[in-house]
């Protein structure tokens, strides 16, 4: 973890195109451009959030980072090592350092394994030399850290509520000694009061263990609460990246502005609420130029003709828009 200022995770020019069959003849292959040229990096102990709507490519990026799927182009570097060039064996040993927590706490835990075994399995894989006593000690420590009673090790996932299952998932991710946890909508399925418990737990664990989170979410309220930096995705490309407070208070990109203004608030300020017209275009044939131009209230000719690149806006705040 002590890499100085070198990023823990570095993503460069990341692309993922999924082929779609073209009718029965399949004459010309077409592609869904789920992720289309994305760069970002995450430093140790930081929470970096990816926000966007369905089809923005945020979950695909999470799966690419975990190397659950192979990228079409681009590089992913974890702690200075190119993840794609690793052999299966090397990948397996490195994988103990980046782990994932999924959205559905009912589908992501094996119902036939005891909670203790669910957490111990990655622990054993990462440290095969660990003896039973040390293993048991580590297991008890993990359960305690995520706020689960000691006796839960001997019980099965179905005996626990959704919030408790997410705690178990977090313990499993931490077990092998993860430095980065990819959280794909990890609290989206939870009730408000339980969501707050799990979010607080994640923040405490970060303070205690220095773990970094790649936090993938559509919930801007949660993202504003948990993140250090936020990246906004639209149709597979980053439109804005910056420190949390910059993104929520001084959003520069028209899409980010619309997204934030669309969130229902407890104290609606009767400012003119901006409602985006239309829908996200088909990622098989995205609009030319800026991908947001078909829905952008400010779009001009240049937006339809040339693709804006992500550039410095203010300090570490970056934006991809011709008009700001």
């Amino acid at each position, binding site marked *: 973890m002590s890499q100085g200022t070198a990023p823990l995770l570095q993503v460069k020019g990341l692309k993922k195109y999924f082929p779609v069959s073209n009718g029965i003849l399949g004459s010309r292959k077409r592609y869904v451009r789920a992720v289309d040229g994305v760069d970002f990096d995450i430093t140790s102990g930081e929470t970096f959030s990816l926000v966007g*709507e*369905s089809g923005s490519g945020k979950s695909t990026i999470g799966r690419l980072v975990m190397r659950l799927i192979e990228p079409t182009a681009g590089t992913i570097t974890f702690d200075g090592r190119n993840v794609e060039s690793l052999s299966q064996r090397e990948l397996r040993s490195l994988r103990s350092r980046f782990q994932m927590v999924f959205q559905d706490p009912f589908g992501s835990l094996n119902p036939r394994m005891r909670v203790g075994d669910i957490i111990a399995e990655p622990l054993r894989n990462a440290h095969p030399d660990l003896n039973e006593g040390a293993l048991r000690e580590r297991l008890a420590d993990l359960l305690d850290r995520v706020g689960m009673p000691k006796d839960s090790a001997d019980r099965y996932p179905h005996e626990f*509520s959704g919030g408790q299952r997410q705690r178990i998932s977090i313990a499993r991710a931490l077990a092998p000694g993860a430095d980065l946890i990819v959280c794909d909508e990890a609290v989206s399925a939870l*009730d*408000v*009061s*339980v*969501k*707050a*418990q799990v*979010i*607080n737990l994640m*923040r*405490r664990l970060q303070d205690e263990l220095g773990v970094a989170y790649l936090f993938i979410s*559509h919930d*801007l*309220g*949660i*993202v*504003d*609460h*948990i993140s250090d930096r936020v990246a906004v995705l639209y149709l597979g490309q980053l439109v804005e990246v910056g420190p949390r*407070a910059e993104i*929520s*208070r001084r959003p520069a990109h028209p899409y980010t502005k*619309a*997204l*934030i203004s*669309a*969130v*229902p*608030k*407890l*104290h*609606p300020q009767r400012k003119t*609420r901006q*409602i*985006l017209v239309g*829908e*996200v275009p088909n990622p098989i044939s995205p609009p030319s130029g800026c991908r947001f131009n078909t829905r952008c209230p400010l779009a001009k000719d240049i937006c339809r003709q040339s693709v804006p690149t992500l550039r410095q806006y203010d300090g570490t705040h970056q934006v991809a828009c011709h008009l700001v």
Partner: protein
Amino acid sequence: MTILRVENLRTHFKTPRGTVRAVEGVSFSIRDGETLALVGESGSGKSVTSLSIMGLIDSRIGTSNGSITLDGRELLGLSENEMEKVRGRSIGMIFQEPMSSLNPVFTVGWQVAEMFRLHRGASKAEAWREAVKMLELVGIPAPERRAQEYPHQLSGGMRQRVVIAIALACEPSVLIADEPTTALDVTTQAQILDLIRSLQTRLGSAVLLITHDLGVVAETADRVAVMYAGSIVESGNVRDVIDRPRHPYTQGLLAAVPEISDSDGAELEERPLLKEIPGMVPSLTREIIGCAFASRCDRARDNCHAIRPELRSMTNSHNAACHYPTEYA
């Protein structure tokens, strides 16, 4: 005028593990043109309340008692045939998942037109014309062409618009919307909530909005009832309840919502931890003695565990079911 009145509704389910008291003595009423939000977490009984009103509780496992009157007419005890005429004609319904409330093997135009044929006795051609008009009203572009498409050909937002078209086709006096935007993206959610609001104004329908999202409540409802463990714990005008909550559960819920802070005020670099409500919702298979929230409440005293607090009036139509409600100067 009060259009829908629910009085002392109790809906219980028989399960192998005992009777689940999903709804336990719920009362409220809605006036013409008004939006009442029922808000609560999973298992609070908000959806079972709406299913009870629509007569969609499977009588083999569940029973509803109490009284539900629509425009003065008692709905509990109506036969399935009679209830079918009420649903669609007098009560419109919108559910969370538009894909599962639409029939995948019929065109969306056919499904909207069916409403006019069944409830208005319209001819096939007439019903189709009305359906296209309805699709246009809910903001579907090129409605003549879209009417001939099947649900899978439409996006989630467009499908929900079709569901709304079906629900409002017969200009029902009450629209029940159960988590209508939960499955949708936030920009689509804003579009759909706006659509429901504008159609409500146009048709003068009362809306019963079931949701877990307090932000949605604040932006759409006139009045709100907060449910916990099958009962209403607080109700009143939306601004009263959100700005001056009386019940500790309502206060806990409001404090647990991480709100995006877009105020231009102080740059809050330090993010405080969210407020948590300790513990979990009580099991509904046992009868709850005293206040259902007492075990999680830092305000609870002995009588909270013994005597169930009734919903009582605080100030102008603001009610709370708590022995020790917060007082405001």
